[in-house]
């Protein structure tokens, strides 16, 4: 650009401009105006989007607002932002320094009087370092490794990733008696392989067993997750469990109930002999101490045997004859509590 045109731009209104003055010194003056005009294109205040009269506080606020959106390390994928940030940061570098700002305002230094803009940011190193970046952190998404094949493989291959493997939940149905006495079960895993599960005696329905390290493998040097096995106890044909006590309805004959007897009673740990007292009835409950389920402290619950008087399956003429002649049979009312 010719100095003349600059003079036109900068001083054209000055009619009193002496012809003689188009000399070396006025050319220098014009050049200086030229640079100021150039600098104005890159006005530092405009770069930060503040007025020339902005307070240091406003300048800081404006810078922070822009830096949040533009700082390359906080926006590592934004290439245009990076160039913009260099300008913003250079502008802030100068305008945040009261002395430099005053000199800039007086035109003593131009926009390039600011510090040399940084050439490389942390993110440049971080993305070059690849798997060797000691800071790289997977805690935000290591769980993806459990669900997706491509990702999990990639994550596993990364030597520097370290994350605990995920827990895996299983559902294991067991027999009633296995729950009472304890057992060892083999769980066949959906992805192949088996898992041995030791069922402690006395386990409750719905209880979850945690098998340390039997979940998904960890990533890198991370430890494996746990297998969480939820136990479902199948119902038993004649035992019923309530906490650590076992309930049983025990059928007895009429004679056993009336006359008393020694009968064999099943318990979860094998049959025992029990005395049915003379004159027992349906609903009479007899307690077999310690024949229930093992508690955590090693003691046992009880088995509660509820007697059910059962008549013979086939009609019995002798019994019919007896009942017909039995006066006492008409003398009591088992339904008296139901009368309103």
């Amino acid at each position, binding site marked *: 650009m010719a100095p003349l045109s600059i003079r036109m731009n900068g001083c054209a209104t000055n009619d009193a401009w002496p012809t003689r003055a188009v000399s070396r010194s006025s050319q220098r003056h014009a050049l200086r105006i030229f640079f100021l005009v150039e600098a104005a294109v890159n006005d530092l205040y405009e770069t930060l989007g503040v007025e020339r009269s902005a307070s240091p506080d406003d300048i800081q606020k404006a810078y922070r607002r822009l830096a949040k959106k533009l700082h390359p390390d906080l926006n*590592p994928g934004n290439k245009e932002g990076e160039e913009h940030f260099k300008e913003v940061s250079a502008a802030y570098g100068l305008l945040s320094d009261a002395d430099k700002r005053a000199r800039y305002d007086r035109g003593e230094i131009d926009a390039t009087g600011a510090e040399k803009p*940084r050439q490389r*940011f*942390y993110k440049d190193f971080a993305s070059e370092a690849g798997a060797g*970046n*000691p800071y790289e952190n997977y805690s*935000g*998404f290591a769980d993806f490794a459990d669900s997706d094949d491509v990702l999990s493989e*990639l*994550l596993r291959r990364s030597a520097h990733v370290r994350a605990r493997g995920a827990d895996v939940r299983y559902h294991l149905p067991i027999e009633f008696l296995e729950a009472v006495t304890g057992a060892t079960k083999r769980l066949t895993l959906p992805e192949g392989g088996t898992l041995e599960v030791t069922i402690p005696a006395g386990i409750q329905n719905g209880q979850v067993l945690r098998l340390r390290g039997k979940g998904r493998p960890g990533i890198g040097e991370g430890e494996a997750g746990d297998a969480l096995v939820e136990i479902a106890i199948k119902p038993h044909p004649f035992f019923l469990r309530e906490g650590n006590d076992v309930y049983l309805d025990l059928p007895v004959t009429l004679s056993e109930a009336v006359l008393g007897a020694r009968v064999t009673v099943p318990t979860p740990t094998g049959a025992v002999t029990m005395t049915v007292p003379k004159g027992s009835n349906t609903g009479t409950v007899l307690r077999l101490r310690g024949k229930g389920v093992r508690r955590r402290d090693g003691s046992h619950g009880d088995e509660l045997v509820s007697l059910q008087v059962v008549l013979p399956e086939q009609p019995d003429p002798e019994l019919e004859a007896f009942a017909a002649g039995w006066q006492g049979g008409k003398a009591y009312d088992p339904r008296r509590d139901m009368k309103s």
Partner: protein
Amino acid sequence: MMISKQEFLVRAQLERETLEAWIEEEWLIPGESADEVTFSDADVARVQLIRDLKNDLGINDEGVGVVLNLVDQVHGLRRVLTEVLRSVRSRA
């Protein structure tokens, strides 16, 4: 390129105590070779980032740890995403 601790302090314009504190906070993780700690150009740039956060962006010390953690996660994500894209492209 590996940088000795002494040189790192000069290049990053850091006080020794500050460096120790930042290592303690795990904002910086120096490498190790022959029982002395070493640093890299990346660490120098990371110091500058920490300074930007603390001085220019007005983030307090607790916040710096949070931001660094998130930045590190972003880089982890970016690298995995790059690998995923590369493997997808090579299959296509």
